[in-house]
């Protein structure tokens, strides 16, 4: 989880990822950033994110992302 925060802050340092709950819905992260983020996550956690998982609900908050990562790691 901490590693996730590090990655997020590295990408776009200006937001407080502990607090933001609507990163996608409030247009804080655009699709280009999301893609960069995914490729980073895939490397870091050794997972593959399928295209169907790229929905706002999975990326709106750090918690949601972490839930996705753990789910994909288990598969």
């Amino acid at each position, binding site marked *: 989880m901490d590693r996730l925060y590090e990655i997020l802050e590295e990408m776009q340092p200006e937001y407080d990822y502990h607090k933001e709950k609507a990163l996608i819905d409030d247009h804080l992260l655009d699709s280009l950033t999301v*893609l960069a983020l995914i490729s980073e996550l895939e*490397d870091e956690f050794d997972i593959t994110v399928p295209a169907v998982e790229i929905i706002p609900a999975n990326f709106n908050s750090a918690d949601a992302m972490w839930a996705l990562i753990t789910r994909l790691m288990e598969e």
Partner: protein
Amino acid sequence: MLSYCSVEYLLVFLPVVLFGYLILPKTARRYFLLLSSYAFFWYLSGPLVLWHVAACLCVWLCGLAIDRVLAARDEALLSAERSQKKAIRAKYAGKVRRWVFLAGVVCFGILLSLKYTPFFIDNLNALLRTLHTGRQLKVPSILVPVGISFYTLMAMSYVFDVGREQRAPEKNFFRLTLWLAFFPTLMEGPFMRYDTAEQIWEVPRIKGENFQKGLWRILYGVLKKMIVADRVNSAVELLYTDFASYDGGMMFLAAVLFTLQEYMEFSGTIDIVIGSAQCFGFVLPENFNQPFFAKTISEFWTRWHITLGAWLRDYVFYPLSMSAPLKKLTKKCRAKFGNHYGPLVTSSIALFAVWLFNGLWHGAGWSFIFFGMYHFALIVAGSFVTPVVISFCEKHHINRRSFPYRLFQMIRTALLVAVGEMFFRALSLKTGLIMFRQMFTRATLQSFTDGKFLKLGMDRQDYIIVAVFVVCVFVISLLKERGCRVLDALYKKPMFIRCLITAVLVALILLFGAYGTGYVPVDPIYANF
């Protein structure tokens, strides 16, 4: 061309359908809606409605076929050993893909051959001319059913979703047809995902609250269209056809006026569409979310024509950039160019596809392709300079979340959008470029001081009323942006006030709307796409 903002639709068709819907029992309501939708379609396009039925049949059958493939797979998986499962999945996934591909070929095939053949042949002829072959092909005139660009994409989103197993295939043909032909969304969207089909099929009772809010929304849309879009029409017409006789200041006015007109026309129509559906009790997806509060071009496209952006994102951008070859490329690039610029290379490739598609979807013409490429270039460039801007701001202690900085971003974005819209509206790519050049080569504001801007078919009062109404829309947008649900807030008022609001809105339309002698209402800009 009939539009949603017409006497026929608002005073005849919609009331009749609403009344029929109100008095019929539940099951009859479904088929009544379906019948009304096809009657509407027939009224607009005549026998061309058969193309729509063909598309419905195609995606319905493909959906059923995919269903059988998936059922066969599940059976095979049950009896299979663990080691074989992966191979079985892959085998059946291939079969599903074949069906999705077939649906795509049929649906896009119809769209391309009906809408893009003239454009294709035009360009082929130009090529033949440059090669001096002396041969020319005849450009056929093809009649295109209304809303084909909209329903084709919707139909395909259904097939894609079924193929990805995000949605169970539809067994009931009529449910699918009603969703794809639903009359409010027929001409100009918004694109609906298939989950709305279940909602529409439920045919809820008409409720006073829904009806009231829907009616307000419709009236607000009519106001936008009739006060601004129709009123500036003559000026826009004149500026874009007779551009050579105006100076740079007027070109700027042309860009701003058309952007305003397009926003008011399109978002106004969508208000009428969503309001119509709301009167029945259906909730349609929003298509606009205060686009001019966007701080970047890429954010703009998540606020303007949202459902098209979402379609392209979900079915073009992500699948493409998450495909195996592009993922490999991403990895390579990240190693070479770092975390920011590495992924940018591959997403640019996917973005290019998105914007080519977006441009072409808007119409068969080079100016539309240019429009797509313009936004593609702006988004990539924006992403490219972001790190530079961030470090620059940090160095000079500029707070990027402060109000003045955000305001600067919003105005910059709006100006870039307006310039793009100018190319979009220009009669051809060439005239667009001439107009753009004129903005700088003849950069004077003389037309505003010598009164030339009052000779565009708009007098001083016209400009004033447009400005006043734009400010009103701005205030409402600001409220919405701050999270205020305007319609809900109005509905909480006492009954007398609610009725008075309706009465005032109707009076405003009749008083300040641009209609009657001397006004030509603007053709629905998006219905031709």
